[in-house]
């Protein structure tokens, strides 16, 4: 960081603000991960880090490299797209697995499955979308 004294001041302040906001929101999300009581509350907390936190740091990185190389550097959009697409998928898979485990253990405070279907995925698939579910 020694040859950076000709880096513009507005860009430095903006990059610093975005970095601090992003990492602060990530820290808040993981503090929620520690402090919430049940799993279904906890599954919300780290998404603060994957949306606002990752967004802030990725925009800071894009801005920094664009100003540093004097050309538009947008390759961090790849990480943004990937994280935005995959985080809901993985967390929904995880929450469904947790609901399945809680139901099979017969916890009393679990809501029943909608429309009286069994929680197992094999029995809920209708015959016409069974090949798609197998793949």
């Amino acid at each position, binding site marked *: *960081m*020694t040859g*950076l*004294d000709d*880096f*513009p*001041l507005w*860009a*430095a*302040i903006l*990059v*610093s*603000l975005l*970095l*601090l906001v*992003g*990492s*602060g929101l*990530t*820290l808040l*999300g*993981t*503090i929620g*991960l*520690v402090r919430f009581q049940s*799993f279904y509350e*906890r*599954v919300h907390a*780290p998404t603060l*880090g*994957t949306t606002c*936190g*990752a967004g802030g*740091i*990725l925009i*800071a*990185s894009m801005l*920094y*490299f664009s100003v*540093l190389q004097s050309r538009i*550097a947008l*390759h*961090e959009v*790849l*990480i943004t797209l*990937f*994280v935005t697409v*995959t985080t809901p*998928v*993985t*967390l929904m*898979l*995880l929450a*469904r*697995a*947790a609901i*399945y*485990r809680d139901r099979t253990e017969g916890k009393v405070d679990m809501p029943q499955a909608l429309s009286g279907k069994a929680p197992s*995925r094999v029995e809920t698939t209708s015959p016409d979308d069974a090949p798609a579910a197998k793949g």
Partner: protein
Amino acid sequence: MSSTILLWSLTLSQWMLVAAMSCATFRVLRGPRAQDRVLGLDALYVGAMLLVLTFGIRNGSTIYFEAALVIALLAFVSTAALAKFLMRGEVIE
């Protein structure tokens, strides 16, 4: 002036990310059930990815971006595989 601002904010944000990763590690080690540990592992992956990105800003090199992309990909694959394992008891059937 601007390099001082950038250096201090990078250091502070890296320490905050390290604190976030320690909170996630606490949940991995302490989590009462397996799904809590998987959730903590996912948060740990995200923290590691963001920490690698801030190292890239600090060194002014774009090579760190590819490492961050690989970490994001591994986070998706490992969390999806572990959720599948918790659901069905096996990953590939």
